């Protein structure tokens, strides 16, 4: 019997969507191990969040302390490790967000545990559960075994369904002993980046441009706005300075898996394909009929993006 602990993440007083997917993964894992699902939430003034989380039917361990206000790995990791011990958890997981990827490895190191990042699925049962995860930017899928008594993991949110509310768990306070003065890490500031468009890695639709835009991303952005999509770009477009670096999709950029990926003026370099191959439907628009992108696109249209994208945008508008 191996219990599973899922660490909840919150932003501006609300549970993050990605956490619900992680709870979904946790439920599946608990079925495989025959253990119970536990949740943990750390922060300052997080009582209401713990209450909210209890509606997912698992016990919620809540560490509420001023020193935990910001998700500093140095402060959160030791508390998380203590909660994992208290809950008797053999598996500790979270969503593969910036916070999850920062805090969990540190807590894993503290518990002498191995870890699987960006887990896509599980295999096996009981103590022999294995983790399926991407390597080489998703060009390879690996089945991984973790040979430590406690096993840590993050999950890619898009691979697990969001868990529905079910039952009622207990809220279990955990008294965190954090000496704020002894911390070597200080939070200075947080600047929210507000964008009218959805976040690239969370968007349902992505419209991306490459060299074929010749530096003019307006048609790409216009279609994106019509679709409510995020804008992506190739390394070539980023290197040319046409768009900011954080729009780069690819092995060294962001890995996305939206329902629809529109690749406009993108030839299909391996580096780029690695970042978007997991999309459900891929549309390619390119003047060059020989462009490699057509080999992986579900629907290819040989043509000028300057003409095609606005036309498609008009169709979307008319179809709404």
């Amino acid at each position, binding site marked *: 019997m191996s219990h599973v602990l899922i660490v909840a993440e919150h932003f501006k007083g609300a549970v*993050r969507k990605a956490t619900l997917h992680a709870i979904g993964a946790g439920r599946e894992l608990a079925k495989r191990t025959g253990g119970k699902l536990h949740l943990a939430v750390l922060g300052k003034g997080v009582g209401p969040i713990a209450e909210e989380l209890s509606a997912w039917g698992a016990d919620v361990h809540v560490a509420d302390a001023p020193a935990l206000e910001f998700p*500093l*790995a*140095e402060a959160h*990791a030791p508390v998380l490790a203590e909660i994992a011990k208290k809950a008797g958890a053999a598996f500790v997981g979270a969503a593969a967000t*910036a*916070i999850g*990827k*920062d805090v969990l*490895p*540190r807590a*894993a*190191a503290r518990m002498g545990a*191995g*870890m699987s990042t*960006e887990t896509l699925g599980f295999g096996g049962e009981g103590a022999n559960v*294995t983790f399926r995860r*991407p*390597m*080489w*930017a998703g060009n*390879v899928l*690996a*089945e*991984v*075994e973790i*040979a*430590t008594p406690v096993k840590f993991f993050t999950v890619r949110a898009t691979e697990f369904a969001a868990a529905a509310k079910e039952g009622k768990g207990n809220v279990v306070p955990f008294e965190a002993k954090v000496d704020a003065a002894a911390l*070597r*890490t*200080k939070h*200075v*500031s*947080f*600047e*929210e*980046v507000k964008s009218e468009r959805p976040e690239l890695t969370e968007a349902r639709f992505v419209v991306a441009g490459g060299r074929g835009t010749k530096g003019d991303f307006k048609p790409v952005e216009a279609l994106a706005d019509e679709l409510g999509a995020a804008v992506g770009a190739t390394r070539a477009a980023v290197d040319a*300075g046409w768009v*900011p*670096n*954080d729009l780069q999709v*690819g092995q*060294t950029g962001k890995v996305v898996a939206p*329902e*629809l990926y529109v690749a406009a003026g993108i030839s299909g*370099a*391996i*580096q780029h394909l690695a970042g978007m*191959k997991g999309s459900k439907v891929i549309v390619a628009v390119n003047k060059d*009929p020989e462009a490699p992108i*057509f080999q*992986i696109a*579900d*629907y*290819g*249209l040989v043509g000028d993006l300057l003409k095609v994208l606005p*036309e498609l945008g008009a*169709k*979307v508008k008319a*179809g709404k």
Partner: protein
Amino acid sequence: MPLKILVTAKRVEDPESKIKVKPDGSGIVTDGVNYKMNPFDEIAVEEALRLRERHGGEVVVASIGGDRSTTEIRAALAMGADRGILVKHEGALDPVVVSALLAKVFEQEKPDLVVLGKQSIDDDQNQAGQYLAEKLGLAQATFASKTESLESESEQKKDPGLVLGGDGKSLKVVREVDGGVETLEVALPAVVTTDLRLNKPRFASLPGIMKAKKKEVKELAAASLGVDLAPKVVVKKLQEPPARKGGVKVADVEELWKKLHEEAKVL
């Protein structure tokens, strides 16, 4: 206030190479694959060089692997790092083993700062820096980034993105996180991992490459460092993701819309 900085340079498959899995799933096909320094480590090396150019000090580059990893150490030396350390180890690596070995290098070198790529583009685990910080009891700042664009004047001037405090004992790190940008202040020594947007790494110059040949590269046998070298994260089997079958070409936007609307039902 001069800084002694330890950086990493892992040997990985070139991101432009096509990765194929061996038929028995035991590994990847390495024939015809090019190797280079992990792109995130290149950013780490670049950042360390900028800090040294600003504040003085020394940049020491470490790599864990077989003799061939010397190539990646030399590449960092050609960019301008001062000396190298090869931790010789032929076996499989995982972040547990890597961080344990790097902790030993840290103890020997006692740097003020460790800068690593946030992940290596082969196993994509994104863990080694965090494990290292915990093992050493140091502050950690992962996913270091820069607010200014990589086309900005500050980038042209090769300003470091990591800002050393006036007393030389702390470092301000801007991090790219979900929904925004966070700034942390870490007490030195600290562990920093680099994200894409921190800087544009320089290319090695010809004189740089010549000089690199004469720079010191020390070898340490991993087995002599008193570290458990058995990986805890064991890859049992590899497979390629289901191949996408090439789709159809459509004649015009009208047909494309119909396909998306009626066949794929995505719009």
